[in-house]
């Protein structure tokens, strides 16, 4: 699989990852790795953030869309 974004730019680069949202193939330069916080608990226990985070790979388009659509506050 080739990197979709590189292909858009007229280049041919092997993909090393896939966007978890849209499935786009991504090269190392265009893959965005985000760490997602994990929480445990909730009624009747106080919620607690655990030390581990869950990684996810996104393309720049999905990363931007998720950032804009993220709930306010928290």
């Amino acid at each position, binding site marked *: 699989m080739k990197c979709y974004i590189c292909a858009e730019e007229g280049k041919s680069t092997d993909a090393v990852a896939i966007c978890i949202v849209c499935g786009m193939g991504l090269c190392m330069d265009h893959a965005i790795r985000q760490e997602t916080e994990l929480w445990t608990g909730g*009624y009747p226990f106080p919620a607690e953030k655990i030390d581990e985070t869950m990684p996810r790979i996104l393309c720049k388009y999905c990363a931007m869309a998720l950032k804009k659509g993220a709930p306010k506050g928290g």
Partner: protein
Amino acid sequence: MVSLMKRSVAELIGTFILVFFGTGAAIVTLMISKGQTPPNSFNIGIGALGGLGDWLAIGLAFGLAIAACIYGFGKISGCHINPAVTIALWSVKKFPSRDVAPYVVAQLIGAALASFALAYIIGMGAVTTGGLGATAPFEGIGYFQAILAETIGTFLLMLAIMGVAVDREAPPGFAGLIIGLTVAGAITTLGNITGASLNPARTFGPYLGDLVLGGTNLWANFPIYIIGPIVGAVLAAFVYNYLSEETV
């Protein structure tokens, strides 16, 4: 997890809301029905307007306030808003010992503030007619009968909490609604027996308010509302754990 101070403040506000709206409904019911002569001492006014429907309305005022608090504060403090629930969770090692006293103190302060707020907003009629919504055994209900009734009522409440919230397999999102409705149902049945406290803090607030503001001194009944709810809640927690434990 947020600090113990913030969690205690959440418990204080949650218990304030529970007592304000719950006992507030009882006070208003007593004040509305004041004009009607109670036919006997078993009828103190609640029930004069709509029979058991009065208790259902009071129960729903408690239950819906509890549901709102659970959805609002559940993730912050756990939203116990009831010393019996805090102690029961501690008894089955689901809640740290060091946090028990701060939670219980915050719950008692929240309940007391709610009773004083009701007296301030409604006026002295809330004390003289409504008794600030204080609980006491009704005519013909003995001390131990009242303890047993409170034990059974709080057993049901804690059983619901264990099944719908503590259990890892509990479906998410339902806890507030189900627990609120459970309280409403228990109050409908037990209201005209013990006042259906199910919560030592809920009784503490009105008792303190009545004492300070010149209402009826009911403190002799307080052990009913300490022993009954705590025994019922602890029993439910242990029974649920025992019955749900899989044997190999």
